[in-house]
């Protein structure tokens, strides 16, 4: 082996080592002597390595957007609108229905006069978006009108709903002031799942509460004789339906909804008002999409612990609202939140762009509600599939256990290598230590997240890293036994073992890659450390170890090799 070759090797190794060391303790500030003490190293690692939620504590939520609910509501709303449009145009509608189910979203209308289907179709599609052929397929066979949602549209609409939900959730999470949240879609696109990770959040109850808030706000016309008579309310749902005088059925442009003035304020908790029912007109005058802003504020004239929500409307909504209120003076209007009437008021004068939801809220519920109103309504409810939380103390326990196991494993391996391979064992131990330092550097440089299974990956790397050295050393011993000189035995040992080392590394990396793709969070951390460890191992256990041998052999003529 030529001299300059050795020099080049040594330079490469020293440079890599220094770079690794710099990555571990350097980048934030100039290293001081204290950094090289045990406590200093611990400190540097703690600040530089990004810990996973299972070690630093935090919440991990996987939720699913119930897109089928979104499609269901869309279909049902279109059905009601279509029926109203047909009636408004003067056609008799005998019956109709909205079919809802995966792969089968349909609006069906049976007209009284089956010869008029073409005219009805035209009247309906002029007013309702059922005419959009990229979403709805129309068929008019047998005297009924049927609009079926296409499969492509079903997928696109569901995907859009998920994206919209993701966006709204992001707004809400940011408004709550959660530090460094991770929010992304999760799993297959068709699964409509969202992953939310919040480091440091131990109890996600409040977050879930805010996310759960669907906050569908509607301002509706309450069917009632005008003021000064009181608003018509009914004690039971049946009474409310009976008041419609249509033989127990609710006509398509009416809806019976519960009415309860909510008492969140502590003082009123013991005496809740009884639940009542009212009849409202659909569609609503305006809905939450027309909101410009919503803010919690103290009730005027009420007690200081009572809150209400002031809202303002966008231009288009304000125009619509102003026109409607102008023509309905003295009639009753209701504020409907999530299909429940929260307050009823009669219209004193024309209102344009401002309103209040008074319902005796507490400060926090009012603020949360205002927040969910501002961020817009979620297109569909969400359900939680996975919820994992780790408190910082549990995480600290895991770190302690992981570090202890690593040190014990490392110690056992080092003792064995020194005992069994003597001088060459030192060689393997140097390679192993270098591997550990570069592993830490790798984690920091790639910004990888260290998790508890990740620590397990490091421990396993310790075991598997020495495998390469064992392969090489055993091979060198074999060559020596067959009578080779020391230099050629070393040369052959490395060359022959290298093929095997490549094969074994590749297979382990293959299975780690699958693990990386499959896993989330902690499991992924395992694959990361294992792959980093194995790649570094090719350098430390083969290249560095060989250089040490070359150096030993170049110094003097060796009579025997300590192996």
């Amino acid at each position, binding site marked *: 082996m030529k001299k300059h070759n050795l020099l080049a090797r040594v330079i490469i190794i020293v440079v890599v080592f220094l770079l690794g060391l710099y990555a571990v303790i350097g980048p934030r500030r100039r290293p001081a002597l204290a950094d090289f003490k045990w406590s200093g190293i611990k400190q540097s690692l703690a600040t530089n390595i990004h810990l996973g939620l299972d070690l630093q504590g935090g919440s991990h939520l996987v939720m699913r957007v119930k897109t089928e609910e979104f499609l269901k509501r869309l279909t049902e709303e279109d059905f009601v609108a279509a029926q109203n449009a047909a009636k408004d145009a003067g056609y008799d509608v005998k019956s109709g229905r909205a079919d809802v189910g995966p792969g089968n979203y349909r609006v069906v209308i049976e007209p009284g006069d089956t010869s008029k289907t073409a005219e009805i179709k035209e009247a309906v599609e002029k007013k309702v978006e059922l005419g959009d052929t990229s979403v709805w397929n129309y068929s008019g066979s047998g005297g009924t009108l049927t609009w079926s949602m296409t499969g492509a549209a079903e997928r696109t609409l569901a995907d859009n709903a998920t994206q919209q939900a993701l966006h709204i959730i992001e707004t809400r999470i940011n408004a709550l002031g959660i530090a460094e949240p991770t929010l992304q879609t999760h799993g297959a696109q068709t699964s409509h799942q969202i992953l939310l990770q919040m480091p440091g959040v131990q109890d996600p109850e409040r977050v879930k509460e805010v996310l759960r808030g669907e906050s569908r706000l509607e301002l509706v016309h309450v069917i009632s004789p005008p003021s000064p008579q009181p608003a018509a309310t009914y004690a039971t749902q049946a009474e409310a339906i009976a008041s419609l005088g249509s033989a127990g059925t609710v006509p398509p442009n009416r809806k019976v909804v519960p009415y309860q003035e909510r008492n969140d304020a502590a003082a009123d908790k013991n005496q809740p008002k009884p639940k009542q029912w009212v009849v409202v007109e659909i569609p609503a005058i305006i809905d939450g999409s027309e909101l410009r802003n919503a803010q919690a504020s103290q009730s005027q004239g009420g007690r200081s612990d009572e809150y209400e929500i002031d809202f303002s409307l966008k231009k288009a909504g304000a125009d619509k609202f102003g026109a409607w209120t102008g023509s309905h003076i003295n009639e009753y209007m209701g504020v409907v939140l999530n299909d429940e009437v929260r307050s009823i008021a009669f219209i004193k004068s024309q209102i344009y762009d401002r309103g209040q939801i008074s319902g005796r809220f507490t400060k926090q519920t009012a603020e949360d509600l205002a927040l969910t109103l501002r961020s817009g309504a979620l297109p569909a409810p969400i359900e939680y599939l996975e919820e994992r939380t780790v408190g910082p103390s*549990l995480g600290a326990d895991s770190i302690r256990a992981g570090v202890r196991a690593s040190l014990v494993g490392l110690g056992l*391996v080092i003792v064995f290598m020194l005992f069994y391979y*003597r001088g060459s064992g030192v060689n393997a131990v140097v390679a192993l230590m270098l591997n550990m330092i570069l592993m830490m550097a790798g984690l920091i440089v790639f910004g990888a997240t260290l998790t508890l299974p990740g620590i*397990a990956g490091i*421990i396993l790397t310790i075991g598997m890293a020495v*495998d390469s050295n*064992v392969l090489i050393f055993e091979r060198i011993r074999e060559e020596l036994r067959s009578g080779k000189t020391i230099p050629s035995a070393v040369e052959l040992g490395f060359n022959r073992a290298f093929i095997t080392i490549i094969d074994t590394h590749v297979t382990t990396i293959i299975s780690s890659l699958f*693990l990386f793709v499959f*896993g989330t969070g902690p499991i992924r951390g395992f694959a990361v450390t*294992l792959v980093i460890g194995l790649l570094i191992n090719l350098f430390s256990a083969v290249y560095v170890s060989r250089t040490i041998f070359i150096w030993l052999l170049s110094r003097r003529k060796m009579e025997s090799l300590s192996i």
Partner: protein
Amino acid sequence: MFQILHDVKIDWLGNRRWFVGISVLVMLAGLFSAIFRQATGRQAFNLGVDFKGGTVVTARFKQRPSDDAIRRALVSKGVGDAVVQPVTDRTDTVLIKVPLEAEGQDGRARVREALNTFGSEARAGTELEADQKAAYKIVGTDAVGAIAGAQLRNKAIAVTLAALVGILIYIAVRFEWTYGAAAVIAVFHDVLVTLGFFSIFQLEVGLTVIAALLTLVGFSVNDTIVVFDRIRENRKLHRRDSLYKVTNDSINQTLSRTVIANGLVFLSVLAMVLFGGDVLRAFSLALFIGVVFGTYSSIAVASPIMVWWEQRLEAANRAAALSFNQPVRGGARPAPVTPGPRKQRSTGAGRA
């Protein structure tokens, strides 16, 4: 130099009937356990929340009530089917496992309600010790819904199989497909044996166990490759030797490496089992079993299968060559009859 297992001459393949017997026996035991438990209405595997769904609450107490007291508190709040499990590392901590809930019910909230009978929980954001009045604190939860559970289960199976196929392809490219198939069968054997142990001893199967199984896949193939690499090398060097003899020699030559290297991995896994804490226990145990059987299978399962397969192909090849006077199998290795450079027949490690 100090060494173990130098110059061994064990007829591994000669004992293959024993090995096959042992492997089949162990696998049957696991299979029997799984089927028997399933048939008698119990669970084949002790699936964790990851796969079954449900909630696990980790609670830490200042003065830990007895398991029974906790159970009674849970029952009084309507959580009747919860499992209370002590944590081996910390006596002040307990795991409470609540099975899958109906939609809209929050396992964590219900457990908290029950635990409030022992005193209040530490305020959010404060540690248990810091809150004077608190009696306990929920330090961790894992809640998995039915959909996520089924999803994770299917994904785990799919990914394990995909990893096996990936490895089969790699070995098929690097060696022959018979080698790849033999290695994959051996790994499959290891996975089944490990799962068998998990069924017999009802150890909890969670996501980390799947990670351990995949690691095991890599590790076991690793080991098999070391032997196969040596066989490949020796076949070139000793063309006159039968595959049977070359395989035996190769196993013997690599035996000391196998024992030492796997012994070291075994040591580090042992450190994990003993000191790695409760969260990693199932993972470490799976690896523990896997390392032992992974080592065994590369010698006792992979090599015999490969030799048996190659011999059958060779026999078929020869028969075909006799009848048609031409080889039928594309890419066949030279049969043992191929004249090669005369070499000293050697059995040990020595080689020119």
